[in-house]
């Protein structure tokens, strides 16, 4: 179809024209199933959750609009304040550990070794195995009576009395951090490995020629070039960890004495067990504004890079 050049033709009109060209219409048609699914499965539940968080709705009753009352009340709730603290401790420590261990593992896997591909594949197992199954196994491993971890540690003499993995507030947090790190490490390692493999070997050769080795190469070449990958992976992991549910729910259910209660487990108890879905939605969405800002800043940084 020739561009419109006759009287009355304008930039806006040609834009509208572009929108309704057969190719454009075909494009809309092809993406419409995806848009429909995203609207129904993502956008609608999200908007509904935001609306419910602004009401005093309980199960079976429509509730009424209360504005930000749920959020303000949460700030006065000592249990919620502890939940916020727990969530930050849990997220920051697991993401940090995954990042650190992920880089180390990626550097190791980038070396030549026998059965390298097999090792790389096996590394993915914690990530692939359904979370609830693997966490149930950890539950048994940390059991107060039958813990195989305590059995081994006692046997080799590393500890003289058994560790209350799930019964002490400190050790319970350590336990959930260990399990989350174990589960998420493959994602970090494989992502960093992929990043490492894109770094040109010539850079290392040139550095070697100039006398830079080992740690100098790591700080000056590897880490800077890996930064975009690190940024993306850390961003995703932070969001996923703040929203984590299965690991804490199965291992400790937020206990003992709320020591591992995080947003998702508290929202579950409040909304689905106690029936206060307005408040439960507010708990789930509490961090959304902050996370949105983090995402925007991170994406700007990545665009710049």
């Amino acid at each position, binding site marked *: 179809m020739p561009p419109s050049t006759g009287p009355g033709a304008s930039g806006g009109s040609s834009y509208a024209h572009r929108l309704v060209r057969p190719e454009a219409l075909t494009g809309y048609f092809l993406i419409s199933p995806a848009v429909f699914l995203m609207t129904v499965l993502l956008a609608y539940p999200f908007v509904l959750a935001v609306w419910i968080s602004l009401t005093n709705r309980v*199960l079976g009753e429509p509730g009424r609009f209360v504005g930000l009352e749920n959020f303000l009340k949460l700030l006065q709730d000592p*249990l919620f304040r502890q939940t916020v603290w727990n969530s930050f401790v849990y997220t920051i420590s697991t993401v940090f550990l995954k990042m650190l261990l992920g880089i180390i593992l990626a550097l190791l896997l980038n070396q030549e070794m026998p059965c390298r591909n097999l090792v790389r594949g096996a590394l993915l197992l914690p990530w692939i195995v359904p979370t609830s199954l693997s966490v149930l196994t950890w539950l048994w491993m940390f059991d107060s009576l039958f813990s195989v971890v305590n059995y081994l540690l006692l046997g080799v003499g590393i500890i003289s009395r058994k560790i209350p993995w799930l019964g002490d507030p400190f050790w319970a947090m350590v336990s959930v951090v260990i399990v989350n790190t174990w589960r998420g490490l493959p994602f970090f390692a494989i992502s960093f490995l992929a990043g490492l493999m894109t770094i040109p070997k010539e850079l290392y050769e040139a550095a070697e020629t100039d006398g830079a080795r080992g740690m100098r190469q790591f700080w000056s070449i590897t880490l800077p070039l890996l930064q975009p990958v690190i940024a993306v992976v850390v961003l995703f992991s932070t969001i996923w960890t703040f929203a984590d549910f299965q690991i804490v729910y199965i291992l400790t259910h937020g206990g003992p004495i709320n020591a591992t209660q995080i947003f998702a487990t508290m929202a579950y108890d409040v909304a689905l067990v106690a029936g206060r879905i307005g408040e439960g939605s507010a708990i789930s969405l509490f961090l959304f504004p902050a996370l949105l800002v983090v995402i925007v800043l991170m994406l700007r940084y990545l665009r710049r890079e």
Partner: protein
Amino acid sequence: MRHPKQPSAVPAMGRTLSRRSFLGVTASATAALSFGTFIRSGLGAAKVNVLTWSNTLNAMDDVLREQAAQYSKEKGVEVSFEFINQTDLPTKTAAAVESGAGPDIITLWSDGPHLHDKALVDVGDVAEPLGRELKGWTNIAKDIAVVGKTWKGVPWGIIPIAITYRSDWCKEVGYSKFPDTYDEMLVLSKKLNDKGHPVGFALGRAIGDGNQSHYPMLWAFGGAECTKDGKKVAINSPGTAKAVDYRRELHKVGESDDVFSWDDSSNNRAFLAEAISVTGNAASIYWAEKKNAPQLREVTDHALWPKGPAGRFGYSTAMSLGVFKFSKVQKESKAFIRWLMEPKQYSAWIGRGEGQIAGLLNYYEDDPVWKTDPKLEIIREIPKYVRMPGYPGPPTRHAAEAMVKYVIVNMFARGCKGTSTPETIKAAEGELQEIYSKA
């Protein structure tokens, strides 16, 4: 450029079905099937779906399946049971209430009728005749199922939580019977622990065992979470302080730290592994021993919860059967519940449970199941002492929320972990005030 039509690879005689014919046949088959379903539903073949928990005693679920099949055959109404994990019931119930779709009959735990009363129909026309015919309902039955003045559930049964103890170990330290008071239990616990047989009452996230062990202790020492009208928080009292001090002492002299990590199955496993001597549990430990450890069954016995200065109390999980308002077969659902509660069916069900479930109609206090084993007789007394969270106030949504948030259990747990009595009570008070301030 259009290509000439390629000759078909399939000979004309081999092509048995054209596109048009295929569409015609499929459409006709679909219409026929739909018509059949329509006719069938039009003929009144009602279907009642029941959602309930998957009992650890599978034999009881088998009885329900058999009874459903029998009812379907006799009455021409198809009844089907769906059994799910106990911990999934609240979520499934919430989903059904919010979506307005799901089972016709739902099993409601404890104060479920209060939490979901707006979504449930009035079943007084089932509950009241049953009460009249079968010697009346117990007080706890009305507490859980009557909201305002309306029956929102038909009390189905209660899982009595008793003191389960090793009689041989108690005899070794000079106790032929389990003590009747908390003070005496403290003395016994120390003696047992000194012999390497600690007691164990869950202080972790055990929604059943944790709450069911500690609410009675709170009440027995005169403590309470709220006032009689259920409106004001009253946890900060001398009675509560005595209860916390007692629990701390019990933990110090008689228990291991394992209890802080326990869920609802942990004390069962600990008892069967002979790691503990005394715990609070349903008859499920005794039942499991029959299959897995018959030698332990000889030396396991049951007792009432001890008395404290303010009396003897218990807290056990009671179940009701509710009918959802969205159900299209409400009349048939009520009729089935009524049938299920009649002596022939009900007795067969609790009989298979061997003491795990007790009836909430006074008629079933003399059920033959309590005569099958002398060690089960004491369990039938327990419902008399049972109160609901919120006692002495009514079982409200606030009391239910406090229970699922483990406010009372955590209060005792903090005390046992070293927090001072005033501090741990103050923390609990703060949590309760936040809950009770809501509408």
